């Protein structure tokens, strides 16, 4: 699977992601492949399960920023919704939002496994 196929598969816009990396496919490829090594998402899930919502907020925020830069649009949207749910007090739908993030995250990871 090519990088473009991967973006199509996870419902994200390959071209704008590429443009942001200065039109360098090499650079986009390098960082997208590094994404599974980044621990932000796992730490986020851990914080939620431990009910440490303050730290969870920062983790969701970081994840949102990172996905925005890599053009992982749907994961970014899910992380952004979760960030807002955690911002001031913990919104009641936090667990559902967290599950959405988890689902999108797993899609990204499994998609990455199929890359050439």
């Amino acid at each position: 699977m090519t990088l473009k196929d991967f973006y199509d598969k996870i419902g994200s816009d390959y071209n704008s992601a590429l443009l942001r990396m200065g039109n360098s496919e090499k650079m986009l490829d390098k960082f997208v492949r590094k994404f599974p090594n980044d621990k932000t998402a796992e730490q986020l899930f851990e914080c939620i399960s431990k009910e440490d919502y303050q730290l969870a907020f920062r983790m969701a925020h970081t994840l949102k920023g990172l996905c925005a830069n890599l053009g992982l649009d749907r994961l970014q949207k899910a992380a952004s919704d979760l960030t807002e749910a955690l911002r001031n007090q913990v919104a009641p739908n936090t667990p559902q939002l967290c599950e959405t993030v988890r689902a999108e995250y797993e899609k990204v990871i499994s998609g990455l496994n199929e890359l050439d």
Partner: protein
Amino acid sequence: MGKILIVDDSQMNREILADMLGGYEIIEAENGKEAVAIVREQTTEISLILLDMLMPEMDGLEVLEIMGKNKWLDGIPVIMISSEDSPELTHMAYELGVTEYIRRPFDALIVQKRCRNILALYAKQKKLTDLFADQFYEREKNSHMMIDILAHIVEFRNNECGLHVKNVQKYTEILLRGLMRITNKYKFTDAEIEIISNASALHDIGKISIPDEILNKPGKLTDEEFKIMKSHSAAGARMLSDLPFYNEEPIVKLSYDIARWHHERWDGRGYPDGLKGDDIPIAAQVVSLADVYDALTADRVYKKAFTHEKAVSMILGGECGTFNPMLLLCLDLVKDEMRSIKEKSISEKSEHDIKAYARELLKNDVLFSSDRVVKRLDHERLKNRFFDAVTGECSFEYHVSTRMMTISRNAAVSLGLPETIMDPFSDKTLSNMFGADVIKYIISQIRNSSPKSPVLYLYLHELVQNYDGELKELFVLSSDETIECPEGADTCSYRILCLTTWENDNYTGVIGKIVPMEFGYGILKGADHIDIKGLL
């Protein structure tokens, strides 16, 4: 081209930014605390900071606040990069002084362009600041030089050693500053003080018109001769008022006042106009006192020098004319300062001048980041490190504004501590190393200090005891020089000298030195073996 500091808690973010900025030298920090420590250490080498907003330990806004307080933002532009959309936080970042705000997702081209533009802008601004500072100094130097030359011509005829003019200038400044401390009646800006003390150099310019044989007559002057001698004040004033140019300049007007009225007396029995009390311009009153003090404490053709004490008591006792009582009060207040000027060898550029320059510069934000100042500060830092390294002493400073303590490099090396410690009074490492009691004692001592008694003398005793083959260390801090040493223990004592610093009665921090009291075993003794060059 300087370095770019990337501050972000996500390693991946730092890597992406660093990649986008290929070609620049990059340093990274993973939280605000680390960033502040790096900026403190490398203020002059960092040319741009990319700063994340939300971070552990210390967030981006706090970093900006500290940078603002330390005036680092004057020289280092900051671009904040965040996916934070809330307008409140964005506005706050701008208010705290960020140059740019880039919202995520950031685009490689935009990051590159903005960084390049800001770097170019700051480089240009820096060049202009340096140019301006150079010209400013050059002009200042030239005008000082011209006044000095002129004043020395007068003194040369007068067979005086040439220090009189310089001394009067310095006493004038000290007295003016002293006056402001004791009364609200007189207010002078730094610029006005500078002008008055410069103008004081011309107080005796009228002596050019006095014949040599009267001017340098060793014996007592006849009434007729004295009358001619006394004409020098009016003559000097006339020279200045007759100038075909510059008569509207403050320095010329003040020079006129000083030249004409520096022999008036508070009781109205002076010359040439018999002015009384407050009718005598304050600048002339101050120079008059400075002139009398310097004349008394110097050798003259007609007399030997009096001691400082004798001179002051003669003036205060009314033996040398009558002065504004407020001015006499002021003399009593600043007499020690005047004595130290008197005693100091007065070379071309005395330390006093340099301090005055530094003070002026620190007030002037524009000049703060100029190369000259930076070099001077670098030199100071180098000097301190060198002295600490060769004497085995350790120095430290703590600033309330940044809640940060820095310790000298040799101390950091031998104690295994970082050079920068945040919130030292609640720092776990320090408290584990020295014990909570030691830290508590220091805090209580600082609380007991005041602007009037800012110096703390403490003794740190290090006890090393052998417990079944295991060495245990204990630190005791006290105001006693010695400590009872338990049997079988080894002690090593250090003297800690601290100065608490104050600004308008507000406690601003502590500076201090730790000095080993004798040779022997001790944690700081390691300093002896450290390669001095490596520390610099």
